[in-house]
């Protein structure tokens, strides 16, 4: 059932977060905190070369080192066929996943795992790693996406042929896939246009930069039972991947979700767990593995860097009549960049009759990319939203007015096919137009920019439960690791249905053997989909509570109502009975049918898309090229905010990560294809002193497919910041920056390049 907003007593309030005390007192158990009896340490030997054939691996000296209990290479994992399935955050090729965990015949990037050791201590494991003798034949490498697409580029995979082109290629290529989306007649649209803007933009790979590194403890028992404790965005995902990569039965693996210190999409893959299980099997001991920060950067997925060409055509009255985008995304060492959503998201906010989008998924000698908040969309929108700004300037119109004129509304058919329904894009633009920030005066030298973002949001398979304890308090169970506050939101939805305060519900995340399957925590789906399951479980419990009250009162169940956490007679005809609260009914549970609880598993559809509009003011230091963020406002259609503070936190967090992407973050490689800045000193994420308070403005357009109207909120806020800041720099300096990050050296160089021209003028 759908709940009426005005009736809500818990949903929409801001109770204290349930995991807060444990986290601020340091008692929360993250993956890296886990220790078990008899545990030993695993370490990985990684390739020093960007691209090399592995001629031989001699582990004999390492195996003889006292304290070493096991050494594994890819030969200790089953060789898996080239098989693709959609089981995680995108199509997953298990052969590639296996090769990423331990290289087969080639090292494909600096940091690629070659072998692993388990020993009594970390020091012994480190010493043993140094004793492994690997003979390489170093190969030419390629880092840049367009270099990798060139005819003479070093080829990473001899069996990779470009998909999506006709006739089928006969030569291997680094271009894994070409995708095309076309609507209308783009050529005719551009011919019809009075004004055309175009530009070529680039982005660099950026890391999700979660504070907690990848970490796990894995135990392979002699009876074949496996236990995994790890930090991930889906313990069911970890279980499924490990089973596939190691040839195990899924039911023989129990995965336990630890607290997670950030994921943002980067923990939707496995890197260490299969290796730790193989080491545990060989050594007979539980094995702990934990990446260093250096390893996190060199060996776990950033998102793609890319080149984007964009072109917009409009009539003099501002109507956009044609749009084109060519996107080239780095996939890293194996195919699978987020090129699909990149192609779909850039123009999804607009009603454009003629659209042509071509995308390329390209491998190069970098770590395999992983999902990162709204995968693919920020890159595409960086170019499109800068172009929309240029178009507004060329037409001499307000950038919000231009977006309102061309913005998607209910009934707009997107260029990738679906028709928008129940969307709130125009409402977010309206909120931006009316916000004090948009109207505030700027001082000389300051600039203001605006940009927008779209994300689909997803649902999917989820399990959740609701159990009444003997004293009438409530335990909610969720099949998803809690990354962004889902314990709070799920507990609140259960509390709302039961009619009890949020504090009466404790939400926990059981292991994979104790609850039904749930797809991973990603795509901003958990509050929507798992929340839907939890709501239905609580509704079943309410029905059961009513039945038991009817049994106690000896009246028909139809004569019982559930109101404010109590069973009450439905009317005077039902009889005069004192209300029964949950505790009163729970005390008689044994006599009325046994324990009270319900679990619901479902496959949620109908996730409503989200839209965001960001406004930013900047000041550019002409001497250093540094860009200072003066004021930042992020407006978003959030459906119904279950716990507004968490929603605001998601919006602020996404904007902060986008600011880092815009101004500083990038992978820097040396002339040998090795990463030069694998640490937080040199890979600069924004810190508190870089940021103003980010004002989050929630626009609530309820999603009718969710009982409380929820939409996913975690993806959208990372999409607009890069273009909003680029547009603000354009406003402050007159310079259109085309390359991310807009770091001090690049901004200073751009200022220097135009200085003589400006001086002459």
């Amino acid at each position, binding site marked *: 059932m759908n709940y009426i907003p005005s009736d809500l007593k818990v949903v929409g309030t801001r109770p204290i977060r349930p995991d807060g005390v444990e986290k601020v007192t340091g008692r929360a158990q993250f993956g890296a905190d886990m220790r078990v009896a008899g545990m030993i340490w695993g370490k990985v030997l990684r390739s020093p070369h960007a691209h090399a054939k592995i001629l031989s691996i001699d582990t004999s000296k390492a195996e003889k080192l006292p304290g070493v209990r096991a050494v594994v290479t890819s030969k200790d994992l089953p060789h898996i066929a080239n098989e693709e399935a959609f089981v995680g955050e995108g199509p997953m090729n298990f052969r590639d996943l296996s090769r990423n965990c331990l290289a087969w015949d080639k090292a494909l990037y600096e940091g690629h795992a070659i072998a692993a050791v388990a020993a009594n201590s970390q020091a012994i494991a480190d010493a043993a790693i140094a004793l492994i003798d690997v003979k390489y034949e170093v190969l030419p490498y390629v880092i840049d996406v367009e270099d990798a697409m060139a005819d003479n580029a070093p080829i990473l995979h001899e069996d990779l042929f470009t998909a999506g082109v006709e006739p089928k290629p006969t030569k291997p290529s680094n271009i894994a896939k070409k995708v095309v989306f076309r609507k209308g007649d783009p050529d005719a649209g551009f011919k019809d246009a009075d004004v055309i803007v175009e530009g070529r933009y680039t982005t660099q790979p950026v890391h999700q930069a979660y504070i907690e590194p990848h970490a796990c403890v894995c135990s392979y028992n002699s009876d074949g039972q496996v236990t995994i404790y790890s930090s991930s965005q889906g313990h069911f995902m970890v279980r499924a991947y490990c089973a596939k990569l190691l040839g195990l039965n899924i039911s023989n693996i129990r995965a336990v979700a630890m607290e997670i210190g950030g994921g943002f999409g980067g923990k939707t893959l496995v890197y260490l767990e299969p290796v730790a299980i193989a080491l545990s099997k060989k050594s007979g001991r539980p094995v702990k593995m934990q990446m260093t920060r250096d390893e996190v950067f060199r060996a776990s997925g950033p998102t793609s860097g890319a080149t984007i060409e964009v072109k917009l055509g409009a009539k003099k009255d501002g109507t956009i009549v044609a749009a084109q985008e060519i996107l080239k995304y780095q996939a890293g060492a194996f195919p699978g960049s987020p090129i699909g959503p990149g192609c779909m998201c850039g123009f999804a906010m607009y009603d454009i009759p003629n659209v042509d989008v071509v995308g390329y998924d390209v491998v190069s000698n970098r770590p395999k990319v992983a999902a990162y908040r709204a995968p693919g969309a920020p890159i595409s929108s960086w170019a499109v939203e800068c172009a929309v700004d240029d178009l507004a300037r060329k037409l001499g119109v307000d950038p919000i007015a231009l977006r309102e004129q061309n913005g998607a509304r209910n009934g707009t058919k997107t260029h990738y096919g679906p028709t928008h329904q129940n969307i709130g894009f125009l409402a977010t633009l309206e909120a931006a137009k009316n916000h004090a920030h948009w109207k505030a005066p700027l001082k000389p030298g300051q600039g203001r920019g605006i940009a927008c973002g779209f994300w689909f949001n997803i649902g999917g398979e989820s399990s959740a439960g609701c159990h009444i304890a003997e004293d009438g308090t409530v335990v909610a169970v969720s099949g998803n690791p809690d990354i962004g506050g889902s314990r709070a939101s799920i507990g609140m939805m259960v509390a709302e249905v039961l009619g009890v305060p949020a504090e009466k519900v404790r939400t926990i995340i059981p292991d994979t053997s104790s609850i039904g399957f749930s797809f991973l925590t*990603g795509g901003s789906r958990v509050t929507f989909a798992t929340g839907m399951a939890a709501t239905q479980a609580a509704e079943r419990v309410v029905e059961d509570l009513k039945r038991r009250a009817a049994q106690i009162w000896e009246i028909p169940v139809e004569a019982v109502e559930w109101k404010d956490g109590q069973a009450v007679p439905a009317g005077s005809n039902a009889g005069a009975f004192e209300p029964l609260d949950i505790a009163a009914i729970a005390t008689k549970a044994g006599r009325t049918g046994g324990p009270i609880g319900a679990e619901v598993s479902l496959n949620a559809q109908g996730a409503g898309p989200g839209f965001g509009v960001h406004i930013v003011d900047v000041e550019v230091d002409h001497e250093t090229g540094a860009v200072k963020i003066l004021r930042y406002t992020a407006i978003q259609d959030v459906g119904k905010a279950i716990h507004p503070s968490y929603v605001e936190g998601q919006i602020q967090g996404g904007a902060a990560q986008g600011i880092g992407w815009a101004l500083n973050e990038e992978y820097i490689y040396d002339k040998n294809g090795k990463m030069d800045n694998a640490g937080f000193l040199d890979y600069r994420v924004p810190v508190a002193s870089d940021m103003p308070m980010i004002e989050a403005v929630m626009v609530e357009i309820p999603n009718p497919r969710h009982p409380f109207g929820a939409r996913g909120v975690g993806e959208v806020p990372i999409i607009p910041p890069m273009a909003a800041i680029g547009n603000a720099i354009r406003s402050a300096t007159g310079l259109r920056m085309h390359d991310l990050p807009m770091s001090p050296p690049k901004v200073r160089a751009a200022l220097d390049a135009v200085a003589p021209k400006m001086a002459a003028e």
Partner: protein
Amino acid sequence: MPKVLITGSACQRFTGGRSELEVSATTFRRLVLELEQRFPGLGKQVEEGMAVAIDGEIFQDAYSATFGPDSEVVLIPKIGGG
């Protein structure tokens, strides 16, 4: 008859570039069979690799979905997230 729209190259490669089809199926499972029969390989591609939007609503997994004679079914890539 329901209309199937194919906007991306992932499926158009099976249809020789055709972007619009009329089908007789009114359930997703029948649609998969019909597409496979008419364009070998397309049914499998749709079942395993595609999401569909039925009258505007995106289904990541449309196995049990039904649609009417005037429905529009759009084949799109499956969507993940971060």
